[in-house]
């Protein structure tokens, strides 16, 4: 008998799910292309920042995805896994997928911020509250990904990963409010400020909004693909575990036969 037979049927993706992933992927690519075109060629330079304002169509978008979409989703999914009524490995896989994609966007946030910081502040990096708390967030979620690689039963891994994700997520509001709580080099929020009155207008505002939508679509596409990878890995992994267990059982039976003989 083969490892997965009768235990877990092979995870087959429905044609509708495949189509959804494809449509989201195409929409994301078109959205990013439009953002780049508007951001680099159509929108005017800023009166104060000049052409550097064009990085604003990239940096807040990737930060939005990393902090609020990815790590926010990871926190909610982890909470739903720990809640006994909603406990399911679906939430664990979703959290893992969100964190991996979020880490990539977090790296992009730090890089794009540093590139904007050099001509604006004169340095690539400053131990500013916003920058430091964002870097701490990256380290915390890298720890989460490292923890997931420690061999364990899926339920054990899911439980301890969920606790770590919730612990790490405490840093998300710290990053968000850092510009209000401490004196920082980093400017305050342009859109999500306490008054909820955006300080950007016209084609610049529309391009910024488009960048948020486009990068959110990129996140959704990556999340769907990464989730699917988790499903396939778990299925193959469970098969390998079954094979190992059967091999051990077979060895035990041979030993028993030898002793009886």
């Amino acid at each position, binding site marked *: 008998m083969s490892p*997965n*037979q009768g235990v877990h049927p*092979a995870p087959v993706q429905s044609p509708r799910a495949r189509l959804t992933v494809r449509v989201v992927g195409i929409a994301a690519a078109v959205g990013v292309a439009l953002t780049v075109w508007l951001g680099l060629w159509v929108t005017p330079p800023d009166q104060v920042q000049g052409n550097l304002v064009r990085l604003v169509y990239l940096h807040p978008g990737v930060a939005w995805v990393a902090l609020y979409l990815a790590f926010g989703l990871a926190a909610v999914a982890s909470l739903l896994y720990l809640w006994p009524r909603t406990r399911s490995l679906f939430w664990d896989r979703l959290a893992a997928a969100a964190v991996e994609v979020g880490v*990539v966007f977090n790296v992009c946030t730090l*890089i794009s911020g540093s590139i904007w910081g050099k001509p604006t502040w004169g340095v690539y990096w400053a131990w500013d509250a916003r920058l430091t708390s964002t870097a701490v967030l990256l380290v915390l979620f890298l720890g989460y990904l490292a923890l997931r690689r420690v061999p364990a039963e899926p339920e054990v891994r899911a439980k301890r990963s969920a606790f770590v994700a919730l612990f790490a997520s405490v840093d998300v509001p710290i990053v968000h409010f850092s510009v209000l709580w401490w004196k920082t080099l980093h400017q305050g929020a342009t859109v999500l400020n306490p008054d909820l009155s955006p300080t950007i207008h016209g084609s610049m505002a529309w391009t910024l909004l488009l960048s948020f939508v486009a990068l959110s679509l990129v996140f959704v596409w990556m999340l769907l*693909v*990464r989730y699917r*990878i988790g499903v396939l890995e778990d299925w193959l992994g469970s098969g390998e575990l079954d094979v190992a267990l059967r091999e051990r059982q077979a060895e035990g039976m041979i030993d028993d036969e030898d002793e009886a003989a």
Partner: protein
Amino acid sequence: MGYVVAGYSIVLSILFLYGVQLAWRRRRLTRAVERVAASEVGHDGQAGGR
């Protein structure tokens, strides 16, 4: 403008490469699952013939 071009190039390259890596991982794992599922069908056929 050099910083702007560098920022866009680096960030979009990272996202593109990660996306390609995800698609490649999914394809590789899908093929592996298909191989295992196909071998199971083979085992079933043998078991049924005995």
